[in-house]
């Protein structure tokens, strides 16, 4: 009845709004009493004392109750009236969306290719360093990780909460082999028959070790996959989570190999196909007749990780159209039906798992080469959680969605590092990055409400007879592990 909504607020409405406002205030009071009402501080003699913050507490409760009152009395009726007024007619929202889906990928690709030039032109050589490295490279590493995990979680439907383990394996493989040389064994004709030696790879280290790091990570993926892929759902998630922690603890405790908490420092940096980015005479700048600047290395790293990420995307797109990709999809949809069609589900899961691990390992090798220093700190569970969150937020299986989620989440975090605006509001010692996880959780709640299946909800069929129609997300299953 649209007419009822137009009538002005009556006394009954006000009472109802007051009642719900009181309830909201009560809940807020209960929640905030321990969180905000009490505060522990150290006094002069280093003792913890309990302080109360009643004014702040009551101010917050009042704000929440007031907002609730406003919502019930003004905003909701207004929205209802508006909804009643707008007749649901033939809209071209679907057409618009199709156009967007058609043009977004090429446009985004063009933008990321031109991005370093844009940054240089707009912010100059000094400012561009921050924009290309902190934003560009950082986001692209996560895009690559997200796309790698997308194969495992989004396509094959196996929830892997320990993905960072493979990232770590790749990073440490590159760091140790590049620094100490690649070990190899020579057979001797006489006792002791074997000789161990290291071969130092020099300027080509990164290019040789990139595939090796990927393969080692894939090998660990297989090793983990064999025993655990018979598990499903929550159990698989728990075991993979534990695997991530095991790798991290080994990195911490195997001091002789990994140098423990102190990490591995001065890792050789990637070279421009053998030419190092140094100020020396045989450095990149000297050879190409440029003035030395750290920006060249940063730009090169940007294009390197862009190429790696695009390679990942191309590989995934191609595999999705092959029988193995369809088998991943089918595995996510219904594992028992897969087995009844003669598909070896264990091998199919292993391919997804180890391929995802390989991509994670290659991203790890890049990460180690870019940082020049790695320690177990970089491979905590939080990293795994962020990558899983990107895949879920992006929409399971959608590459564009995962990339968007990476931009929003990683870019958002980086943005918060230098928001001086917030400092003027909350005081000089306010550090926005500390609220990152809070905002993170807030974003997840919003996504759960508005887009419970992620940003991109449709699935693109791998093959078609007459026309390719996107499959509605409501029909696509998420897999049970």
């Amino acid at each position, binding site marked *: 009845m649209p007419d009822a909504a137009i009538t002005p607020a009556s006394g009954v409405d006000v009472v109802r709004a007051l009642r719900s406002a009181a309830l909201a205030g009560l809940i807020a009071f209960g929640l905030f009493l321990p969180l905000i009402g009490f505060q522990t501080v150290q006094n002069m003699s280093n003792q913890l004392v309990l302080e109360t913050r009643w004014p702040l507490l009551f101010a917050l409760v009042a704000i929440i109750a007031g907002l609730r009152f406003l919502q019930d009395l003004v905003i909701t009726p207004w929205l209802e009236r508006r909804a009643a007024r707008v007749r649901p007619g033939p809209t071209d929202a679907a057409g618009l969306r199709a156009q967007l889906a058609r043009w977004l990928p090429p446009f985004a690709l063009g933008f990321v290719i031109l991005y370093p030039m844009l940054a240089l032109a707009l912010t100059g050589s000094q400012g561009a360093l921050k924009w290309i490295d902190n934003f560009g490279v950082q986001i692209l590493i996560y895009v690559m990780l997200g796309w790698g995990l997308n194969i495992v979680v989004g396509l094959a439907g196996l929830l892997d909460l320990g993905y960072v383990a493979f990232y770590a394996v790749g990073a440490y493989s590159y760091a140790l082999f590049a620094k100490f040389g690649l070990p190899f064994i020579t057979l001797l004709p006489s006792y002791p028959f074997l000789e161990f030696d290291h071969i130092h790879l020099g300027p080509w280290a990164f290019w040789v070790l990139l595939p090796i790091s990927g393969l080692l990570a894939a090998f660990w993926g297989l090793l983990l996959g064999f025993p655990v892929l018979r598990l499903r759902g929550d159990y698989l998630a728990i075991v993979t989570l534990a695997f991530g922690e095991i790798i991290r603890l080994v990195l911490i405790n195997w001091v002789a190999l990994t140098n423990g908490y102190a990490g591995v420092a001065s890792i050789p940096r990637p070279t421009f196909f053998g030419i190092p980015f140094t100020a020396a005479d045989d450095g990149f700048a000297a050879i190409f007749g440029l003035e030395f600047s750290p920006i060249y290395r940063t730009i090169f790293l940007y294009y390197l990780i862009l190429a790696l990420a695009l390679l990942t995307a191309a590989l995934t797109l191609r595999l999705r159209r092959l029988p193995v990709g369809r088998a991943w999809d089918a595995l996510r949809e219904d594992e028992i039906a897969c087995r009844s069609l*003669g598909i070896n589900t264990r091998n199919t899961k292993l391919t997804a798992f180890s391929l995802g691990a390989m991509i994670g390992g290659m991203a790890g090798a890049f990460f180690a080469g870019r940082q020049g220093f790695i320690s177990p700190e970089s491979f905590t569970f939080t990293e795994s959680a962020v990558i899983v969150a990107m895949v879920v937020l992006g929409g399971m299986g959608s590459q564009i969605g995962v990339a968007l989620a990476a931009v929003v989440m990683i870019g958002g975090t980086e943005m918060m590092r230098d928001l001086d605006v917030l400092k003027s509001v909350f005081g000089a010692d306010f550090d926005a990055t500390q609220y990152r996880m809070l905002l993170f959780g807030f974003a997840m709640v919003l996504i759960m409400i508005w887009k419970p299946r992620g940003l991109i909800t449709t699935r693109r069929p791998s093959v078609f007879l007459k026309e390719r129609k996107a499959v509605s997300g409501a029909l696509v299953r998420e897999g049970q592990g």
Partner: protein
Amino acid sequence: MSAAGAVLRVDHLTMRFGGLVAVNDLSFTAARGEITALIGPNGAGKTTVFNCITGFYKATEGRMALQFGSAALWRELEPLTQRGLRSHERADGSLFLLERMPDFLVTQQARVARTFQNIRLFPGMTVLENLLVAQHNALMRASGWSILGILRLPVYGRAEGAAIEKARLWLDRIGLTDRADDPAGALAYGAQRRLEIARAMCTEPVLLCLDEPAAGLNPRESAELGDYLIAIRDQFACSILLIEHDMTVVMEISDHIIVLDHGVKIADGMPEAVRNDQKVIAAYLGVDDREVEKVGAEVGL
């Protein structure tokens, strides 16, 4: 019936779940090129038999042998059982011991396909994709285990084209060509049933196991299903093992009927014989205890 004409031979199959005996010492034969129906009241153990044959359950005891190609291979059954191997494969045919095979190999090598009581399609994939997943193993070989496929070699393109053509033939047959690019989950119930059978047929089986294909269909659809199954039997040299409650369908299309009750075979024969069997009538309609004894005495139990 002689063993030579058999496609599947089940000997002394027993399946226990803890203390519960779901199937007890069941032996039967499914003849090549025939529709064999497995019927019985709810809880008789029919689906358990299916799950044992298709490898989803590991049978507690018993032997299940499947053969295609030259019937002479049946002579290898005892030696094969003794040797402890899975299969005996020759140029002119193959013999498999299904209880020794994992579920996916039962379909992949022994060429037994199945459908499920509660339909198990891939709802988020299109109708065409469902039929292509069923041809996974052939396509996987053609794509060189994905390597040739990634390189976009024409070998794979041709194989995929052939697979799509085969899928289209099945779509024409089940009248779903127009829905090929729609998600399987959006199809009507009857269409999903037909698609599941077509999908099973795309694995090129010699034995098709259908678990209640007529459940939930209206009388017209049931009649169509009967014709569809007879066509499969006659055109594709495919034997069918059928679990069904709809007696109209069963009596119409079955060449041979086996009746189970409480995991035990109580009748085995032609449809007319089974229809008039006192034990079958007792099992289906139920009788009080005195009558069971009386009927039992009459039929010599």
